[in-house]
């Protein structure tokens, strides 16, 4: 400031201030534009969730992410307002000897008797030599989850990329659970008009016991309450 006060004219002082402001803006733009940091969802032990079912030694807990604050905290945006229902699924194999195949594409959300939704980008697979394997590539495609977000500048674009990446990272993936094994993650459903009303639905999940080939179904009655 001493230097500025010694300048011969007010114009020079203004130029010096503008230079300083430009430098600050440039540095701020360069180092300030970082993508939003999103924490991984910290799941609780299965027993702590209100929606728990245990069948044939396979314990499954579910938690629909409808709380606006919780959604913004973990995904950077309110998923329900984008018509996306994210259901957290936590699975524990408590059987001493059975293995279970878990396929998220075989989950569904049903409203009433007629409206049933498959997970995002997940056609029902038909395993087998003719058709199955290639279709498995599709289920994980949640790239367009962030599509409703139209971003204008680079900071927002970075954030959209980070959100998209986070959705991908947190997704429940198909796996085979060995005894004492655990699996968790989110299954995403795109449901038009989701944010407009609170309504009950049934979330269907299933495990397949590898030895007997028996399918173990789980149906959770969930209330999709819009929480601010």
């Amino acid at each position, binding site marked *: 400031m001493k230097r500025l006060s010694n300048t011969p004219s007010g114009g020079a002082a203004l130029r010096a201030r503008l230079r300083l402001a430009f430098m600050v803006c440039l540095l701020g733009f360069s180092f300030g534009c*970082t993508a939003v940091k999103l924490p991984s969802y910290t799941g609780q032990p299965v027993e702590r969730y209100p929606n728990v079912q245990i069948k044939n030694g396979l314990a499954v807990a579910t938690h629909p992410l409808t709380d606006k604050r919780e959604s913004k905290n973990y995904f950077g945006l309110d998923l329900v307002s984008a018509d996306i229902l994210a259901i957290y699924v936590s699975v524990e194999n408590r059987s001493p000897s059975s*293995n279970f*195949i878990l*396929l998220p594409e075989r989950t569904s959300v049903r409203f009433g008797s007629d409206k049933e939704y498959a997970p995002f980008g997940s056609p029902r697979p038909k395993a087998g030599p003719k058709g199955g394997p290639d279709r498995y590539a599709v289920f994980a495609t949640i790239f367009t989850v962030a599509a409703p977000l139209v971003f204008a500048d680079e900071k927002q674009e970075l954030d959209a*990329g980070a959100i998209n990446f986070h959705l991908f990272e947190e997704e429940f*993936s198909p796996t085979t659970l060995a005894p004492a094994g655990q699996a968790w993650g989110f299954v995403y459903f795109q449901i038009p008009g989701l944010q407009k009303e609170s309504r009950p639905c049934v979330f269907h999940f299933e495990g397949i016991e590898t030895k007997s080939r028996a399918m173990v179904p789980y149906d959770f009655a969930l209330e999709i309450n819009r929480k601010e």
Partner: protein
Amino acid sequence: MHRHLFKPGLTLLLSAFFLTWFVGCRSVPQNEPVQSGRFSPSGDKIPLKVALRLPATNVWMGWLTREDCIQLTRAVFTEVQVQDPSGEPVGTDVQAILTPPSGWISRTMHTGISAWRDEIVTLRGVWILTDRNGEILWVDTIKARVRGSGHGPHMNRNGRQRVQTLLDGFAQKSYDSLRSAPAIREFANFKQK
């Protein structure tokens, strides 16, 4: 404040900024073939005759090569019959069919802009083992992740090393998962009886 250094300093800073910016905007070549490291297994193999069903498209070959896939499978199972999509049908003595990830899902996240950004690349693929009737015996999702600074993974030597690390990690995790899967061992034991 040394005023005489201001202009050169500003010019240098702006030049560096825009240079790195445009380098960052350079297009990243797609499906550039990257050779994954050789895979060296050890230990007992699973006593199962498996047909390795390679996918119809060659797009995925840019990530994990056909040879790597065969080598990995042969390191896990006692007998492997490689089956190309256009090849002969599965032999009658084949007990299971292994399908490597045909659709690679990769995501890249940039944590900043231009030259100061970090990049996280995650690769995800699903291995599926079915019986001769197409019933799923075992399925697992393998994820590999790598983080580094700079622009696209293919852009420079460091980027190539990151891709190599990613693929090696994927191959190793695939190998570990196949070998340690109780469901596959269970099926192999059942077939042995």
